[in-house]
């Protein structure tokens, strides 16, 4: 006795409509990530700029370029910084994702949820979720190094025809894309296994994988629906950007006779055109962020939580009936 996908979609939609606060963890995550990026860029600047200012003598004496001034030490520092910030990003993301799943679960069970659920869930499970996400991220990075790094190494070290080299890299890229998609589907239930079933990182990974194996069809269907619904959302955003662009163009004075534009009138014209274009793109990015944070992410979380809880319950019921 299981819920059909349509019912899951409908009830999930209803729950989301009554509990818009499920969007809050994703909003906080967005702000926190933004902050992290700014701090990362700032520290990058500090790391690279300080040795440069100290070596002012070297800069003025020789005509070497920046790349030569960056020795192995600073490159290692940059990589280390990058690793630290990516780990921090995944950590923050795990906290808010765990919080969101906890809120979704409470909303499904009791029709209402609050930020308390987010904090409780986040505090309890962020470490397990962080470890699980770290394991998956590291695996993907290893795959990347193997499938794309090795071809790049081959191309640069071994004298092969350029065409074969680029085809090898292209093949590596295609295969990587395919494998990452497969991994994403295989382990999509992991956050829900960790938070809702209260498991550790390794147990959560195993359980998430087993959940897919036991419920391949519903998982694929929901994944397909979410993927294409997001894509169509993208079309809507493109439409909004086009409208913004077309409205903005109205303010750009383009003379009726294109051939009569003098050379020095052309540059400000192109600049205002590019400005309108950039504004339209910025509007599109903002709208897509808003839709992603307030609609897509909470809906997705609720839908997957319902599917997970429903199938686990029916699985338990089946086992209870046997014994």
């Amino acid at each position, binding site marked *: *006795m*299981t*819920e*059909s*996908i*349509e*019912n899951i*979609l*409908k009830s999930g939609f209803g729950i989301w409509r009554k509990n818009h606060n499920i969007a809050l963890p994703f909003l906080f995550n967005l702000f926190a990530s933004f902050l992290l990026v700014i701090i990362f860029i700032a520290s990058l600047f500090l790391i690279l700029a300080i040795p440069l200012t100290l070596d002012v003598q070297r800069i003025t004496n020789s005509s070497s370029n920046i790349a030569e001034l960056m020795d192995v030490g600073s490159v290692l520092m940059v990589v280390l910084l990058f690793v630290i910030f990516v780990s921090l990003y995944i950590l923050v993301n795990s906290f808010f994702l765990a919080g969101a799943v906890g809120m979704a679960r409470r909303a499904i069970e009791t029709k209402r949820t609050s930020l308390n659920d987010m904090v409780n869930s986040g505090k309890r499970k962020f470490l397990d979720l962080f470890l699980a996400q770290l394991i998956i991220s590291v695996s993907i990075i290893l795959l990347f190094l193997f499938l794309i790094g090795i071809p790049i190494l081959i191309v640069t070290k071994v004298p092969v*025809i350029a*065409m*074969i080299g680029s*085809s*090898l890299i*292209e*093949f590596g*890229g*295609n*295969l990587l*894309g*395919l494998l990452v*998609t497969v991994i994403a589907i295989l382990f999509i239930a992991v956050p829900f296994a960790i938070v809702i079933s209260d498991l550790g990182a390794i147990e959560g990974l195993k359980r998430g994988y087993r959940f897919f194996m036991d419920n391949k*069809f*519903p998982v694929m*269907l929901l994944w*397909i*629906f979410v*993927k*294409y*619904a997001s894509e169509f959302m993208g*079309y809507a955003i*493109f*439409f909004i950007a*086009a*409208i913004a*662009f*077309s*409205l903005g*163009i*109205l*303010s*750009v*004075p*383009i*003379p*009726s*006779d*294109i051939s009569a534009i003098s050379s020095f009138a052309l540059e400000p014209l192109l600049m205002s055109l590019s400005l309108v274009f950039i504004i339209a793109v910025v509007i599109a990015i903002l709208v897509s962020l808003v839709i992603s944070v307030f609609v897509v992410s909470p809906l997705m979380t609720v839908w997957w939580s319902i599917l997970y809880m429903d199938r686990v319950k029916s699985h338990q019921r089946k086992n209870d009936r046997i014994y």
Partner: protein
Amino acid sequence: MTESIENILKEGYRTWRKNLILGVPFLLSSIVTLLVIFATLLLSILMSIPFFSQMMGNMQEGMPNMLLAFLLLVLLFTITIFLITLINAFFSAGAIGMAQKAIKTGKTTLSEMIYYGKKKFLSLFFAYIIIFLITILGFLFFIPAVIAFLLKVINVGISLLVFGFATWMLYHLALNIILILVSYAIVVGDLGAIEGIKEGYRLVMKNKLSVVFLFFVTQALLWGCGLVISVITSLMNVIPLLGIFINLGIWVLYIIFIVVVITPLFMVWWTHLYMDGTGMKPKEIPTELPTTSVQAPEIPTHEPIYV
């Protein structure tokens, strides 16, 4: 809508597996279409030869003849397009009829294809033409932009062009989804062209979620196949010269695969959805219990219950 998308997909797949002959109408349609195109190309080359030799001789005298040749070519291409649409209508009607029979009785044969093809190809053909005209209507969205350009108001023109393009894309997308059940309404529902279009529209509006879901699933399947093929072809590209020929072969096989395997499967799914939406499917005994939980009725008591 009584059936869930999972059932439609599962049963549709089962029906298709037992009736792989459903690929035949699509294969025949492609082959006949290719033959017609080939014949047209040959004919157009043959027609142009006497005019070219005349053109070489005298430009001034050759002008009206060239115009005649051009008009004849346009006529030839229009006739070809009509012919191809007619052929497509015949085989599509046949295929949908076969699918309907397979869903109702479990088995189908090529004689159904001929029967339904002959019976419904004209209605389907007219529906195709009407749909084509409705699609062309979308170009009306560009008229404001054209007017603005003619009036020399360039910035308004560009603005209306971008807006018109975006609206045209949206119109096209919506039309694709709204008219998706028209062929099935015409063949399975035995309706005329206009009735079929109206019924197709009505059904899509009534079953938006199922239609959208099935649309997503078909797109996803095509995308998945494309992903696998691109991985294989990019691998073959690594092999220097032989790789290109292998890829050519892979592409041909892929196209045949799409025509003979994927397209009939999609068609069976849509036929299933149509028949389910209009209650034409032989109802099976549901193996799933309804999921709505019934609460025990509360009996209000004012006195203590004595057990």
